[in-house]
């Protein structure tokens, strides 16, 4: 086999390898300049995106404080001041997470953020909210106190009333705790990562185009001779 043939065989074997294919597909789907852009369109200068980033910051604090609580066990916060502190950090970062996420969600709903092929961006964001609700609920059920008992029995009745009580036993502490510290956080973090990557891939949704008929009517009322052609985004 000549050197050229040998090089060709080596190249084709590299092209066939799954690592090369995954790398090429990844770079094609999300090139570095899209993954980490150094500028954004002017309409991204909006408070609504601050609340999206605040959601991410809150989620980071939730995960970190939750990891510390998981290390020490669910009863730790009952008998030590440090445990109580981290439990409070965990609770209030969850409160902030939901607050910021809901404001971001409202804003994106009224911006119709699913426009321009961004359906998956919208759906991953909305489903993150829906999955975060049972993630928080299982946390309240894991408090190991009377509050947790009350919430679990009320939620048990809710689950039974919608016919899924056979799958989720809210009074089973072990099941709820593993849902809270592993399964549901994995789902939330996975959805958030997918959401951010999809935002990077598709870009932030531009504002609505001005309604040309309404603008024409306004211009005629004002006596203006003609309208300039819309050039894209405004804010």
């Amino acid at each position, binding site marked *: 086999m000549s050197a050229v043939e040998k090089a060709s065989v080596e190249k084709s074997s590299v092209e066939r390898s799954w690592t090369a294919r995954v790398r090429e597909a990844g770079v094609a789907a999300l090139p570095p300049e899209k993954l980490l852009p150094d*500028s954004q369109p*002017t309409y991204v*200068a*909006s*408070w609504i995106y*601050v609340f999206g980033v605040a959601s991410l910051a809150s989620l980071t604090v939730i995960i970190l404080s939750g990891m510390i609580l998981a290390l020490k066990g669910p009863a730790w916060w009952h008998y030590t001041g440090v445990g*109580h502190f981290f439990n409070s950090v965990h609770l209030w970062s969850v*409160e902030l997470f939901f607050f910021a996420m809901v404001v971001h969600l*409202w*804003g994106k709903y009224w911006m119709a953020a699913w426009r321009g092929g961004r359906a998956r961006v919208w759906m991953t964001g909305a489903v993150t909210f829906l999955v975060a609700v049972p993630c928080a609920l299982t946390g309240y059920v894991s408090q190991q106190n009377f509050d947790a008992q009350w919430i679990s029995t009320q939620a048990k009745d809710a689950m039974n009333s919608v016919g899924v009580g056979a799958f989720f036993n809210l009074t089973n502490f072990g099941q709820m705790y593993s849902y809270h510290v592993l399964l549901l956080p994995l789902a939330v973090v996975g959805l958030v990562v997918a959401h951010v990557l999809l935002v990077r891939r598709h870009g932030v949704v531009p504002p609505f185009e001005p309604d040309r008929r309404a603008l024409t009517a306004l211009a005629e009322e004002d006596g203006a001779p003609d309208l300039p052609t819309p050039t894209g985004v405004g804010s």
Partner: protein
Amino acid sequence: MQPTGAAVMGAVFNLDHPAHVVHWHFIDLSVANVVVIGLMLVVFALAIALPFPGAARRRSGGAT
């Protein structure tokens, strides 16, 4: 929490009573939840209405 800290916080937030509830037809919400929902609406309105710092400069062709 230390006893002194607990006493101070207890003086600010008295939680030693049944929750206050807003009840209207089928709507049954704790006052704490109503306050949070109201705050979210206010913050949302402000987020829409308030100009973002530097946005006007960017639109007029300044640095991004």
